[in-house]
């Protein structure tokens, strides 16, 4: 078994260390799992793929899980996906049940993580088997579908969501139309003087690190780098103890929330906040006494934390079977694969069986490490929330520089790209452009071009996109469904606004 030989002590060590660093990132408000993965990417340059992935998956699982600590103790979501954890977690802390709430959240996280890893294990190869038959036409439609889903679930408005995605695609096209993939080697979308720098376009990693690393720091700097004032209030009294009995009667909730998390994770570009918000509202809808939720009800906490960890396995499904990232963190993971010279897509699992098994192993290890580390060291992790930002942020910027500079073995322009997109990300969130659709568009843009142009070159007619195969037609049905859904929700919400705002 080659696979077992990959599971070296180093593998377990890296997965464990990654998880712990991830938890710390997640626990510090304002720092996300995505940032953890982006900032630690340079560490994987000299590791092989299996070990690099072990580290990064650990960071991912840890980063998502760590967010529950400040959410429960300080009422500040550590990562966007733990917003709903604050609803019931913080009231529990106020009641003196802080430690119980933390441990409940950790155990729920473990369930969600393991559940979704299981779904990933059985579902991704099946999906890849279907996707292997895809020609350029279906691949283009798949990207179109991915972008339409992102847009339809976009936070503010569908139009702006689509715009952000298309802007990402547009920016990814800058540079040479690569001969290696059948292009003609001409540059486009730039002036002559830019050719020296932008011959191959903007590199993915500096763009990612800029948007997910530097942008956060600029946002914080704008707010004046305030240290969390509530630090002193972190109290963990032992008035009521955690016990597994608390999960009694929560079976349906656990499975529903884990499934919602996994499913939302599979949808491209939809982040953890959507997963936990959806499962929290479902719990509220089905609850016998909905008024309890929001006032320190354990079931609300369980719903939120199970769902956001369910996301981890879920969002790896489209990444590993189709090459389409499920959320912004997995988008950064694509960068890690690219670094190792591996193209993720339908062929990935079949051709890299050992890596595939090691990914599952890393996920399991990360979840278990997360559980034991957080369960037994929770009191110490709670203090992490108070790490001073004036020491932390300069380190982050420094790590961002290393990551950006090293990606193409030392090109200063990549460092400037980092700054450029750091500022871009900061301006973008001001004017409403959303980073998730933008990044997914940016990652998939070049592929979309090849698939689209090559399909037309070989078939010579736009009708091929509708008539190529039953799969193509099915994808159109999905695209129309997601467009229909978004139009339905936007009409519904604008009606709601109109009826609640008095006309004047």
């Amino acid at each position, binding site marked *: 078994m080659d696979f077992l030989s990959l599971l070296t002590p180093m593998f377990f060590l890296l997965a464990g260390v990654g998880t712990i660093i991830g938890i710390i990132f997640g626990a510090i408000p304002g720092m996300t799992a995505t940032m953890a993965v982006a900032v630690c990417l340079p560490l994987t340059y000299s590791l092989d793929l299996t070990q690099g992935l072990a580290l990064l998956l650990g960071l991912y699982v840890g980063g998502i899980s760590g967010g529950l600590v400040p959410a429960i103790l300080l009422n500040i979501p550590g990562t966007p996906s733990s917003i709903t954890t604050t609803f019931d977690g913080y009231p529990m802390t106020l009641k003196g049940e802080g430690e119980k709430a933390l441990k409940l959240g950790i155990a729920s996280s473990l369930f969600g993580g393991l559940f979704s890893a299981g779904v990933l294990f059985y579902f991704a190869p099946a999906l890849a088997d279907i996707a292997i038959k895809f020609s350029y036409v279906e691949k283009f439609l798949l990207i179109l579908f991915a972008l339409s889903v992102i847009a339809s679930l976009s936070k503010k408005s569908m*139009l702006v969501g689509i715009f952000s995605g298309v802007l990402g695609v547009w920016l990814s096209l800058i540079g040479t139309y690569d001969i290696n993939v059948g292009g003609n080697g001409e540059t486009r979308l730039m002036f002559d003087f830019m050719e020296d720098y932008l011959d191959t376009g903007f590199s993915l990693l500096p763009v990612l690190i800029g948007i997910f690393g530097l942008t956060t720091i600029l946002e914080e700097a704008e707010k004046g780098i305030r240290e969390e004032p509530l630090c002193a209030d972190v109290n963990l009294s032992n008035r009521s103890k955690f016990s597994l009995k608390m999960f009694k009667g929560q079976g349906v909730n656990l499975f529903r929330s884990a499934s919602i998390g996994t499913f939302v994770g599979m949808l491209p570009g939809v982040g953890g906040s959507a997963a936990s918000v959806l499962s929290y509202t479902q719990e509220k809808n089905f609850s016998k006494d909905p008024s309890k939720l929001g006032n320190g009800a354990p079931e609300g906490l369980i719903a939120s934390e199970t769902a956001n960890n369910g996301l981890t396995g879920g969002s790896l499904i489209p990444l590993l079977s189709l090459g389409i990232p499920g959320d912004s963190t997995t988008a950064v993971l694509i960068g890690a694969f690219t670094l190792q010279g591996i193209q993720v897509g339908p062929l990935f699992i079949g051709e890299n069986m050992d890596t595939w098994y090691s990914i599952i192993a890393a996920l399991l290890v990360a979840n278990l490490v997360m559980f034991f580390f957080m369960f037994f060291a929770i009191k110490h992790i709670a203090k992490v929330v108070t790490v001073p930002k004036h020491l932390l942020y*300069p380190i982050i910027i420094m790590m961002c520089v290393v990551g950006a500079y*090293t990606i193409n073995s030392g090109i200063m322009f990549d460092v400037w790209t980092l700054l450029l997109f750091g500022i871009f990300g900061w301006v973008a969130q001001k004017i409403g452009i959303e980073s998730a659709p933008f990044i997914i568009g940016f990652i998939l843009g070049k592929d979309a071009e090849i698939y689209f142009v090559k399909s037309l070159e070989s078939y010579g007619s736009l009708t091929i996109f509708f008539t190529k195969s039953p799969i193509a037609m099915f994808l159109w049905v999905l695209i129309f469904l997601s467009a229909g859904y978004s139009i339905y929700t936007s009409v519904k919400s604008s009606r709601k606004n109109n009826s609640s705002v008095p006309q004047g």
Partner: protein
Amino acid sequence: MEEGLFSFLKISIDFKESHLFFPTIMTWVLAILAGVIFLVYGIRFIRDVANGTRRPRFFVENYDKFRLYGTVALTVVYFMAMDLVGRYFPNTGFGFLFMSIPFMFVLSMMYSHEFNRSKMITIAVNAIVAPSVSWYILGKLFNITLP
């Protein structure tokens, strides 16, 4: 023969010009989307601003000019200096090491709200240790190219 209803959908792409085909479409899509967004939101926004019901605000309230612009300016200086020093000592990562130390020190100072002796010492130690450790681990142990 595929003549008839769908013949207008026929497209032939000149290979010499094929690098512009998709970007042109995307530019148009982008422009049209921008136009629609302007019609849907922009007009109302301008009207609200004009009659004073809404004040456009780019920055957060009472935003910290010093720390925001300071971060950007310092980062630009940091990158330039790193490149410059790095050229003097090629392939050593000294540009990164020598410039990260003052950068981190100044940035930490800038981000601090109040000062005392022990805090200054922590900042100084952090500014020296963090870049040195990353330079050693990444540059020396892992052989990663640094500026």
